[in-house]
């Protein structure tokens, strides 16, 4: 079903066509995984988010208001799941720090062996630097650079004004460039 629009696939799924849902999963799972990976900085959490987001889509598909904005809706769901997870990660780290326990089982920011695809050192450095950007710059940049979303679409996903999106992205690029000089 490669030629069908997202909204058509959602409609087919609502009418009982499970293959249409599989087509949506095939179309977006890598993008959602990469967005979550950029937001969270670790692969385990990103895989959990991938699963949670598509489960949420399956359950909420009837509530989706089909106006050609499926991608923005999907990424909004992904963002919410990532923010929830970041919040509980932060809480968990605080509890561990306050309790004086070590962080041996906390998720590390290191890429897993399966992810060691950035053979070029500069690309590896760039990915690491993106992970160090402030959260809001990181999410805006991920949508802009990896999803090639327009400023308007990013504004829809993040629920912020278009000019703020532009500022976040240019600040992120400038921050990365400063480290790249």
């Amino acid at each position, binding site marked *: 079903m490669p030629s069908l629009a997202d909204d058509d696939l959602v409609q087919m799924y609502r009418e009982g066509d499970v293959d249409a849902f599989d087509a949506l*999963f095939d179309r977006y*799972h890598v993008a959602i995984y990469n967005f979550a990976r950029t937001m969270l900085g670790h692969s385990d959490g990103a895989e959990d988010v991938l699963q949670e987001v598509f489960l949420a889509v399956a359950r909420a598909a009837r509530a989706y208001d089909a106006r050609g904005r499926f991608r923005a809706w999907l990424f909004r769901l992904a963002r919410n799941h990532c923010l929830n997870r970041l919040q509980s990660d932060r809480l968990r780290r605080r509890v561990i720090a306050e309790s004086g326990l070590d962080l041996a089982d906390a998720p590390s920011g290191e890429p897993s062996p399966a992810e060691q695809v*950035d053979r070029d050192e500069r690309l590896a450095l*760039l990915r690491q630097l993106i992970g160090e950007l402030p959260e809001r710059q990181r999410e805006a940049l991920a949508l802009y650079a990896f999803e090639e979303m327009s400023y308007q679409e990013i504004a829809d996903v993040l629920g912020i004004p278009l000019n703020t999106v532009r500022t976040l992205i*240019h600040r992120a*690029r400038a921050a990365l460039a400063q480290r790249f000089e």
Partner: protein
Amino acid sequence: MACDIRYEEIGEFAAGELPAERARELEQHLRSCANCQRRLDAVRAVDTGLARLPRLLPSPGGLHRARRSLSEVLRRTQEPELMRLDEVAEFLRISLDELEEVVAELPAFEVAGQLRVRRAKLLEWVEARERSYRRSSAQSEVARAFADTIESH
């Protein structure tokens, strides 16, 4: 032009987002300012890097887990909420004739002369029968144990 150019503005220039007149001024400035030229090179290197950064893939195990949970949810969401009697019989793994024996107990309702059962109600009914069966099995067990005890005396 004094070199008080913001880094962000160089980024906007590289992205082609500056107004034409400002872009021309900056272009001119870049010819004589090694500092800004270096910044422009760095912004371009970042943009190239972003475009070349490979997509990461979830692990085969993670992908399998996601697909499996999804298929379970999809199966449940696609099942009809209202069931006909033949679907109820199929769900209970019995024949329609066998269903006849318990049809009066089913949480059914009538619409246009046809019986329908809500899936959620049917599941509750099954659970109630499970509980009742467990109770009666336990009672039979106690009764058997009691009879054995009496017999051995």
